[in-house]
């Protein structure tokens, strides 16, 4: 069970996402999880061993390290990534439930069921409308909340996004105010700023996706209200074209070779 398992789970959700959702997923995997595993973990690897205090007093170094780093940056980011990825599971569960219902209908031999076999049901991509729209929108909302909470928690715990070179510590059993030196502070600051920047980009993508879904919802409602006033089977050619474009944009990147297929 590692980040690869998360990749498998989220890859399945990717099929039913909007194009902005797919970009968000790509940014998450390449610029956050991959950077975390490949680079950031090494930078923080020796943080306690190379945390040096100007004292020979046993225990002082441990106590000072614990005081300044209640939770390591790396672990905090790992937690953030897990929490931020979890709302997508809501969408996965909803899709699985719908598929289960369709399979039940198919097995009963329901006339209304439009599928020819089980495989088609398994491969079908559901459009984001109806109850799935609500699930999807709430998952984006929770994602936003988690991102914001973790960024604020990080800022609050570490007094900003900078890693100081020197910390002055006077916790017991240190005999007096002792200088403690952090290992690789500049490199850590660079990676912190990088991760915060990518986090902000993800927040912006989520906000854009939320606005897109809300706009789509209101447009559809006004279109339905408009259609019910006009003749029932009247088709506006331009509207059809526009709908087709919108669908294409939201359907794009479906079968990317990054392996984001169920």
């Amino acid at each position, binding site marked *: 069970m590692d980040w690869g398992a998360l990749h498998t789970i989220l890859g399945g959700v990717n099929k039913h996402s909007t194009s902005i959702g797919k970009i968000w997923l790509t940014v998450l995997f390449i610029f956050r999880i991959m950077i975390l595993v*490949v*680079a950031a973990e090494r930078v923080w690897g020796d943080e306690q061993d190379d945390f040096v205090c100007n004292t020979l007093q046993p225990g002082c170094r441990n106590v000072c390290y614990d005081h300044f780093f209640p939770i390591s940056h790396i672990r905090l980011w790992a937690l953030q990534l897990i929490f931020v990825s979890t709302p997508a599971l809501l969408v996965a569960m909803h899709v699985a439930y719908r598929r289960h219902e369709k399979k039940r209908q198919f097995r009963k031999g329901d006339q209304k069921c439009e599928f020819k076999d089980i495989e088609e049901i398994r491969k079908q991509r559901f459009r984001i409308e109806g109850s799935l729209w609500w699930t999807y929108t709430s998952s984006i909302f929770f994602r936003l909340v988690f991102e914001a909470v973790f960024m604020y928690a990080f800022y609050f715990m570490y007094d900003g996004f900078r890693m100081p070179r020197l910390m002055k510590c006077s916790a017991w059993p240190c005999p007096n105010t002792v*200088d403690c030196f952090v*290992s690789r502070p500049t490199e850590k600051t660079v990676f912190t700023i990088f991760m915060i920047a990518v986090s902000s980009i993800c927040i912006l993508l989520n906000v854009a996706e939320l606005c897109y879904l809300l706009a789509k919802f209101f447009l559809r409602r006004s279109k339905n209200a408009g259609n019910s006033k006009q003749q029932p089977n009247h088709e506006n050619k331009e509207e059809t074209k526009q709908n087709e474009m919108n669908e294409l944009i939201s359907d794009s990147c*479906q*079968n*990317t070779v990054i392996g984001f297929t169920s």
Partner: protein
Amino acid sequence: MSWVFLRDLLSGVNKYSTGIGRIWVAVVFLFRLLLYVAAAENIWKHEHDEFECNIKQPGCENVCFDHFFPVSHIRFWALQLIMVSTPSLLVIFHVAYRENREKHHNQKLYKNPGKIDGGLLCTYLISLILKTGLEIFFLVLFYKLYNGFKIPHLVKCDIKPCPSTVDCYISKPTEKMIFLCFLVATSCLCIVLNLSELSYLMFKYSIKCYLKRHVQKQQ
């Protein structure tokens, strides 16, 4: 979840590349990614532990190491590899968009969705320009950060809390220098490959355009 992800991404890119593009993928995969994982990572593994200063003052080594290596070489190259491979995603997304469009209309809109023409040519050229730009950016940044492409045996450090100018010794400087030269050389090779692919594509399609116009004029 590690470099395997990048490897899969690069294999995907290979399908839609020109011949020179495939050479680029091979160079990145064999001479940069594989070398990085198999060799370079281990050389820089204990760089901090083995960095020694001629002083017993606690904290002096930490501070001097941080001053001379603001970002470790190895992390720098990891970032460079990831950033340089990412523009290829644009091409993959565009091809997927084309395939999706065909599926939507249930008819063949393109002779071959993966063929580099029209809009896909523009996307491909943009990705090449981005790749080249990022490579040059990282090389220049490396040069500015480390005052050239060299790794000295000894650095002199006088930052607080070091009491005076102190000699600090870097571990495995020669081995690091060899790998540094190799990785910079492969970076330059990738820039040359990208530029030749760019000129090849522009030449090919301008000839095609010219011939088409010539034929149309004759008709």
